[in-house]
């Protein structure tokens, strides 16, 4: 089974975040493999270990996004494709999806695994666009994935449980954090990653053009500050009633 996992490099969630003047996410700081994509890699590796095959990591980003691919390779993925091109700087979700789709199409995978949304941009639009462009069925927010023959079945996370959804491969699956605990790389894995292939491609290699941006961020506003809560002092007599009244107004009881 040939599995492609998309991986994005994002600003380190453990460091302070910021925006550039054009509202793109500041990238002049520590960057890491998106923690969400580590789940995708883990699921890809689990499926490969069970069924054999190959896990290919595809990332779009600047030169140093190669580090995100390396990390996945040291976890056990087989090879990587880095899409990098000056014209892609500040790409919106559609251009990102087009670039990823072109690189992935050339591999004809049985399964494409993405995270549900990225840690930084977090539009959640890339995977659905990618599925359309690849003409694959999409199975979203999976907390469990099974592949048997040419059928892929997932448990799709919902608010109050899960749905069982299936499709024919090739298909695209987005996974949630609950799916599997990502493994730590091993030192042997890190050393082995040295000799694994990371192919670098640009827009012209993929045969796509930048075109007009489909999406522009007009403004970024702070979330409204949360109102201070109401403090109910229990003077020994009216505390409980007051609390019940507050809870009833809030319709939680």
């Amino acid at each position, binding site marked *: 089974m040939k599995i492609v996992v998309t991986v994005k490099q994002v600003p380190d969630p453990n460091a302070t975040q910021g925006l550039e003047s054009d509202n793109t996410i500041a990238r002049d700081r520590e960057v890491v493999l998106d923690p969400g994509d580590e789940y995708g890699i883990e699921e890809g590796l689990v499926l490969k270990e069970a069924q054999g095959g190959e896990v290919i990591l595809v990332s779009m980003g600047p030169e140093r996004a190669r580090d995100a691919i390396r990390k996945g390779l040291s976890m056990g993925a087989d090879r990587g494709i880095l899409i990098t091109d000056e014209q892609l700087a500040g790409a919106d979700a559609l251009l990102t999806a087009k670039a990823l789709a072109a690189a992935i199409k050339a591999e004809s995978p049985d399964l494409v695994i993405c995270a549900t949304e990225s840690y930084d941009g977090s539009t959640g639009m890339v995977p659905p666009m990618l599925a359309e462009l690849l003409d694959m069925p999409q199975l979203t927010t999976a907390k469990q994935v099974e592949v048997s023959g040419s059928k892929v079945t997932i448990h799709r996370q919902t608010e109050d449980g899960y749905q069982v959804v299936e499709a024919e491969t090739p298909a695209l699956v987005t996974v949630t954090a609950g799916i599997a605990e990502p493994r*730590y790389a091993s030192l042997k894995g890190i050393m082995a990653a*040295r000799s694994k292939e990371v192919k670098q491609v640009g827009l012209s290699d993929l045969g796509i053009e930048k075109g007009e941006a489909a999406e522009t961020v007009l403004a970024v506003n702070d979330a409204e500050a949360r109102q201070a809560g109401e403090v109910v002092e229990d003077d020994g007599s009216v505390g409980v009633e007051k609390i019940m009244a507050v809870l009833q107004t809030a319709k939680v009881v």
Partner: protein
Amino acid sequence: MDFQLTDEQAAVRELCRDFAREVVAPAAEKLDREHEFPYDIVRRMGEMGLFGLPFGEQYGGAGGDFLAYCLAVEEIARADAGVGITLEAAVSLGAAPIHDFGTEEQKSELLPDLLAGRRLWAFGLTEPEAGSDAGATRTRAELSGTEWVINGAKQFITNSGTRISAGVTITALTGPREISAILVPAGSPGYHILEPYRKLGWHSSDTHPLAFDGCRVPEANLLGKRGGGYGQFLHTLTGGRIAIGAHSVGLAQACLDAALAYAQERKAFGKAITQFQAVQFKLADMAMEIELARTLVWRAATGYMRAPESSGEVRKLAAMAKLYASETAKRCADQAVQIHGGYGFIEDYPVARYWRDVKINEIGEGTSEVQRMLIAREIGAG
């Protein structure tokens, strides 16, 4: 000159940083409080390959380099100094002498388990009457038939008494002024591991006094050349000191991390205390000294990688790295507690633990005084 890490070194650091933050740090408070040895963490570090990091693949090592190993020690010690020293002692004092001086048989018998972290090996140099003056060893080993018969005692031996401790390399007199190194497997007749110490810090690490009471081991357990023990341990301590430097940098960094985070939250006189210049300057000094200490460790580590036969120059750099980093860590721990005010004296905050843990870094693997003596000698003073 370029201070960039290689891809592999950077990957090792990232891996260890993640593991330390996600697995080691959350367990540290309990291990410290209950004086518990971290068997589960050691097993996982073993599976990741940390115990075999700087060794070749022939005996199950990961084929990394010495600087990568120092980065691993720094990151683990940053989360828990006791776990950090368990790794450092197992690699630099336990496995390294066997790797560097062992025969083919000794290496193929012992190293696979040690490099996988399944078993730990200890290094017994210090004695009740021979600490800084390690050449004053009193423990004796005499050949009787085809066995060494060992009598004596060792003091403060790390990793000697865990469930997975496989043995200890000791220095012993094998003749007049002739010090040799001998491998003593756990379970050898007459080898006694005594009750653990009640330590001030490093509570998650394992330290025992050892007694040798007519202890018998095969003649083939001699490590390296007969009479070569002194030179061997000088060599072993050179690598060990650089790694202790890295351990100290990790501890110092933990102090800065905690102090900065606390200072940003804590308010006094209506502002965050980071607004006070007296606090800012403490934090700035900590950050600068940590960077200096780290740079010195990296410099010593790269020197050691190029000249593992430990030239005088490398021995000097190793002493400087160990000395400067441990004293930096001590100052950082002190200031971190100071920045926490009264809360820093309370065990609910990790800086209290850092403060207890850091003192031994100025003592173990050669005291600060001994490092200054070594540096003075190498620069031609005395």
